[in-house]
C-alpha cells in the first residue's frame, strides 16, 4: 500500500505533474489542495502520510499552512516544493517544521527520493 500524499499547489499543471510522478512511483495521491487553507482543511480530513507544499499561493501561503498543520499535528511530514530563488522562504518553511524541500522545476526522481526519505 502506497503512502497517502496530499498535493498542494495553486497551479493545476503542477498538481497534475506531481500526481503523475507520484502515482507512477507507488504513492497514492489522496487529495489536491489549491491553496494553504485547502491544504489545512484537507489535511484534517484525509490525514495523509505526506504533504507536498507550494509556498506562494493565494488565500493562505505555504508557510502559514505548514505552521498551522504542524501545530495541529507535530508529526506531519511536509515537503516543500518551491520555486527557484525562494531561499529565505524555504528556510523559514524548514524552520516551521517542513522536513525537506525540492525546487521546481524538479526532476521526477528528486521528488520521489525526497518523499521516500521523509516517509522513512
Amino acid at each position: 500500500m502506497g503512502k497517502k500524499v496530499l498535493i498542494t499547489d495553486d497551479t493545476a499543471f503542477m498538481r497534475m505533474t506531481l500526481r503523475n510522478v507520484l502515482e507512477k512511483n507507488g504513492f497514492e495521491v489522496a487529495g489536491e489542495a489549491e491553496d494553504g487553507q485547502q491544504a489545512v482543511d484537507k489535511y484534517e480530513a484525509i490525514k495523509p502520510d505526506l504533504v507536498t507544499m507550494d509556498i506562494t499561493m493565494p488565500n493562505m501561503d505555504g508557510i502559514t499552512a505548514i505552521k498551522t498543520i504542524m501545530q495541529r499535528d507535530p508529526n506531519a511530514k511536509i515537503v516543500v516544493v518551491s520555486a527557484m530563488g525562494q531561499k529565505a522562504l524555504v528556510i523559514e518553511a524548514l524552520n516551521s517544521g517542513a522536513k525537506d524541500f525540492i525546487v521546481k522545476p524538479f526532476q521526477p526522481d528528486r521528488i520521489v527520493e525526497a518523499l521516500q526519505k521523509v516517509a522513512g
Partner: protein
Amino acid sequence: MEEYRDLFLAEARDYLQSMTDHLLDMERDPHDTGHLTEIFRSAHSLKGMAGTMGYELISGLTHAMETLLDSLRSGGVDVEREMVSLLFEAVDLVQIMVDNLDNQEVYRDDVQELEKKLLAWQGKGKAKGAAASDSMEAAPPAAGQPGEAEPAPALDLAYFHETFNDYEKEMLKDVLDKGELIYHIHVWLREGSLLKSVRAYMVLKALEGQCEIIKTVPSMQELDEGLFERDFYFIVVGNPVIEEIRRAIEGIAEIERVEIAPLRDLVLEQETAAVDAAAATAAPEKAQDRPQPSGTEAERPGAELPAQADGRAEPAPVEAKKAGLNAQKRAAEKTVRVETAKLDTLVNLVGELIINRTRVVELGKMAGDELLSASLEQLERITTDLQNAVMTLRMVPIKQVFDRFPRMVRDLSIEKNKGVELVISGEETELDRTIVNQIGDPLVHLLRNAVDHGIETPEERQQRGKNPAGTIVLEAHHEGSHVVVSVSDDGRGIDPEIIKKKALEKGIASRDELAEMTADELIQLIFRSGFSTSSVVTDVSGRGVGMDVVKTGVEALNGTVEVKSEKGSGTHFILRLPLTLAIIRTLMVRAGNEIYAIPIEAIRENIFVEPREIKTINQVRVITLREEVLPLNSLSEALEMGSFEEGREVYPVVVVKAGNKKAGLVVDELLGQQEIVIKSLSSFINEIKGIAGATVLGDGRVTLILDVASLLEDGRVSIGKKGSYH
C-alpha cells in the same frame, strides 16, 4: 569576481607551468609517481579555481585531464609519449584560454574535441581492465559540471595548513588533549541540486546538538550564498554518534553521499608516508568511486582521509607533525606578489633620489662643512644600498624564460625525429625583468636552430661515433655586470666553407674578402641580415634561420651575441646581456655646448685622429683604422646641432657599433664614464631618432642619451659595414 581575476591569472599560470614541468619529468621517469601526483594536484586546483570563476570550459577540460591522470595513477593506463602529448595539448589549450579569458567561447569546439580524446584514452585503460573502476562513467562531464565521479587527489598535508589558521590549530590541539574527537564530515550533493545553500543549511541543522562545528569549507558565508559546486565539508568536534549523524544527513533529499572520518588520522600521518601512500595505495583502491571535492579552494582534501572510512582514531605523536607543518608554512610565506607597475614606480623614485643625492653631496662639498660632509657620506652609502636593494626587486630569475624550453625542445625533437637532451643550468641567475621578458625570442631561435639544424639525425650521429641523442646545453651565469647566456649543442657545427659559398651567392661579400677571412670570421657572417633569411641556406648549411633576428634582439637589449663553432663537434652561442636596463654605464662626451651620454655597450673604442689621417671618399670623411675604412661623422652634425669643425689639431673620435654597422663619431671632448639612470622621454618626443632617453646629471643638467643603433640606421651617419671596406 573581476578583482579575483588577476589572482586567478597568476595562480593559473603557476599551475600550468608546474604541469608542464612535471609532465616532462613524468615522461622521462614514468615510475616516479610523485610527478603524477603533482600534475594531478595542479589540474585539480586549476579546475576548482576555474569553476569558482565560472570558466566552465577551463574547468571542464581540466576535469577531463584529471580523469585521465587518475587512470594513470591507478595503473589503468601507461605513460606513453602520445598521451603525454595529449596532456600537453590540453595544457596549451588551457593556457590559451587563460590568456584570452574574455574569448573563451571561441575555443568551445576545441575543448570538446580534446575532452573526448582525453576520455577516450582513459577509456583505453579501462578496456585493459586493470584497476579501472566500475563506478567511473567514462561519459565526458558536461562542461561546467566538474565533479562527476572524480578521483581523489593525493594525500596532501598542505591541506592542513590551508584549512586551518593558527588559532584553529591550537584549538584542535586542545580538543585532542581533552580527549574529544575531531571529525571531518564531507557531504556531496547530487548533481544539479538547486538552492544548494539551503541543503547545506539542512545538513548543519542535522548536526545541531550532536557536535560542535568549528569550521566549514567553504566558509559559512559562502555556504550561505551557495558559492560551492557540489560538496562541502565540516570539521566538527565532540563525541557524536557517527551513525546517527550519518543517518540524519543521508535522510536529506539530494544528498549523494556523506563521508565521516576522524581527523586525528590525518593530523598524525607522517608527511613522507602520506605522500608515498597517496601515490602508491590510496589512489588505486579508493579513488575511483570517491567523488572528489571540486569547490572554491585551490586545494581540497580528498584522499587525505585514509582508507578506513569510519576509522577509529589511533593515538600517535602530534608534536613531530606540527614541526614539519610549521616549516612548510614558513616556506609558503616567503614571497608576495606585487604589481610590476608599483615596482617601476619605486625604481623611478629611487632613481630621482640618487640624482638629487648627487646634487646635495656636491653642494655639501662646496659648503666645506665637515659635519655636513660626514652625514652626507652616510647618506650616500645608505642611498647606494637602497638603490641596489631596489634594483634587485626588478631582478627575476631567468628561469621564467628557461622554463618553457624543455617542452619546446621536446616537441621539436619529436617532430624532427631527433633525440635531444636539453640540459639547463644557472636558471636561478637573475636579471632585469625587462630583459628577461625580451630574451625569450632570441633564445627560441637559437634553440630551434640547434634542434633543427645543429643536432644530426640519430643515424648520422651513430655513423660519426656520437651518442645517438644530441645534447643542447642552455646555461646562464653572472659575469661582472653582465649575464652570459649560452646555447651549445654537440651537433654538426658550422662549416665555414659552406658559409663562404653561400655568402658569395648572396652577394654578402666578395670572393677576395672571403678569401681573407678566418674561419671564425666566416662563421660570424651568419648574423648578417642578408645571409640568413633563406631557407635554402638553412637546409644546406644547417644553420642560419633568423640569426640576424637574434642579433638584433640581443642588441636591442644592449647585449652582444657571438658564435663559436667547430665543424663536426658543435656550435656555441654566447649572449652577453646587461643586468639591468634602468641603469647603464655611459661615456659622457661634449659636442658643441651639449653633453651626451653614449652607452658603453655601443662603443668599440675611443681614438684620437689627426687631420692628416682623414681622407674624403665620395664626400664622406674616412680614416683607415687597422686596415678598415671607418667613416667619420661629427656628432653635432648628425644631430643637427652644428657642423664639423675644421682645423683642429686632433679630433677625439668615439667608434660606435650597432649590429654590423660601425662609424666614428667626432666629438669635442671626452668627459669620462658615468653610471646613469635612464629616464625615458615622454611619448610626445620618443620618436626622435638617435636619442634613447635622457638622464639628469648630478649638477641638475639634463643630458640626452644617444641611441647608437637608430643613429646608424637612419642615414644621418655615414657608416661602414664590417667587411665591406677591405
